[in-house]
């Protein structure tokens, strides 16, 4: 195959864009890294989430909103193609507030974001304790729960099914996916880019770097300097339980099979991806303040993953000025943004030009010299 585009990275971001390109009849070659690479796509919590996003950059809220609005159609197309159920549900989502102060702070944070967006009808509201209890009839709330914010567009999906379906979709649409093909080098040339992986090289007129935390070193080779750091998130998983939580919350979600996922920590511990007892204790403590009966549930699993964090936590979408045809797509919300990546981003990369609406996500926003 002579690919038109090489996608470096088969995580949720790279796979979604590659799937979108394959849907548009582009010949796409996806190069996946090694088993031991950091793989955020396999540690993900599985929220398809909107409320509260973009408090420092309202454009990020709007971007997420576009993706969330497309998610249902995206999921059903992918299921039709692959036969895999993404277990997507969009019944709204909750962020619990422990104490009245936290409740008021949540309200004012969401109101400020709402005001910055200007004009749009609110798709969220604050629920007091009584309203919250009605929404969760099987949960006896802990005494500290003052209420929650409810986002009506929020939802959740099975992130591993999503990843498997994207990979399957790429193959079914005629794309190629190579595993254990970590990329060492990208060499720009007249005809495009030559990419070295394993013992071989492949070439294409375009290349997309979507290699998560490995992207920084690769992007530098095409003239893009992207500040990036890992942020550790740990998750606990309970045994399977009868349905308890009818909708996901920012730190708790019950999967269709019945496990309750408890997340997640935000730790600045570099590339250390170990799971810790301290995090298990902290997550358990917080969870029991919200749903005390979970004390009866057995924990069966704990893991840690590394988020792909930019300095402002928002995505980076960029094309190299120096080497046209080289693109970068990075974010830590690959599940929420998957629908957008498979459509808007795939269209843009196919066209060779990112739309103006994505200018704000160029990494040049980080180039401002630091004040002394």
């Amino acid at each position, binding site marked *: 195959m002579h690919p038109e585009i090489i996608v470096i990275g088969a995580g949720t971001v790279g796979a979604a864009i590659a799937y979108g390109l394959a849907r548009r009849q582009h010949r796409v070659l996806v190069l996946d890294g090694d088993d031991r690479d950091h793989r955020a796509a396999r540690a993900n919590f599985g929220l398809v989430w909107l409320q509260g996003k973009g408090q420092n950059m309202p454009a990020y809220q709007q971007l997420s909103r576009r993706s969330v609005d497309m998610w249902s159609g995206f999921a059903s197309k992918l299921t039709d193609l692959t036969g895999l159920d993404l277990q997507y549900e969009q019944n709204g989502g909750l962020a619990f507030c422990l104490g009245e102060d936290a409740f008021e702070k949540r309200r004012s944070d969401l109101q400020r974001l709402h005001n910055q967006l200007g004009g749009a009808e609110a798709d969220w509201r604050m629920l007091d304790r009584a309203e919250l209890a009605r929404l969760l009839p*099987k*949960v*006896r709330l802990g005494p500290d729960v003052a209420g929650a914010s409810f986002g009506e567009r929020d939802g959740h999906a099975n992130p591993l099914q999503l990843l498997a379906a994207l990979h399957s979709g790429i193959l079914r649409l005629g794309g190629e996916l190579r595993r254990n093909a970590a990329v060492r080098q990208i060499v720009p040339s007249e005809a495009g880019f030559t990419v070295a992986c394993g013992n071989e090289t492949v070439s294409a007129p375009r290349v997309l770097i979507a290699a998560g935390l490995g992207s920084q070193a690769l992007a530098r080779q095409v003239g893009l300097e992207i500040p990036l750091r890992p942020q550790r998130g740990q998750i606990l998983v309970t*045994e*399977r*339980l*009868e349905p*308890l939580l009818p909708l996901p919350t920012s730190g708790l979600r019950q999967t269709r*099979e*019945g496990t309750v996922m408890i997340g997640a920590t935000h730790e600045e511990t570099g590339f250390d991806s170990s799971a810790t007892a301290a995090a298990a204790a902290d997550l358990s403590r917080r969870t029991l303040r919200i749903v005390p*009966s*979970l004390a*009866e*549930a*057995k924990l*069966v699993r704990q893991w840690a993953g590394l988020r792909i964090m930019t300095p402002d936590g928002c995505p980076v979408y960029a094309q190299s000025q120096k080497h046209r045809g080289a693109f970068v797509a990075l974010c830590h919300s690959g599940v929420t943004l998957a629908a957008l990546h498979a459509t808007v981003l795939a269209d843009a990369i196919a066209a060779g030009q990112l739309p103006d609406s994505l200018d704000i996500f160029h990494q040049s926003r980080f180039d401002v010299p630091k004040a002394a």
Partner: protein
Amino acid sequence: MFRKLHEPAEAVTVYVEGKPVVAEPGENLAAVLLRQEAIWSRPTPVKGSRRAPYCMIGVCFDCLARVDGVASVQTCMMPVRDGMTVEHQQRRRCLPS
């Protein structure tokens, strides 16, 4: 059907689904379950297929049962005590509300 190879010198009684059963003090509780006529210990939470104690070393989680009122106990990690009660666990657990 499994049976014990020796006659224990001492015996205790445990109650499996309410039925008194003879066991050796300190023996592995899952081994006691394997000697019962209904050898299976639980249906799986999602598909409901029957599972019996399997690995006997705390790895496979197929021997879960409710022991003295505590659910999802790995019976293969539990030494027998006199008067212990064991109940089959039905599919997914319901938390007390």
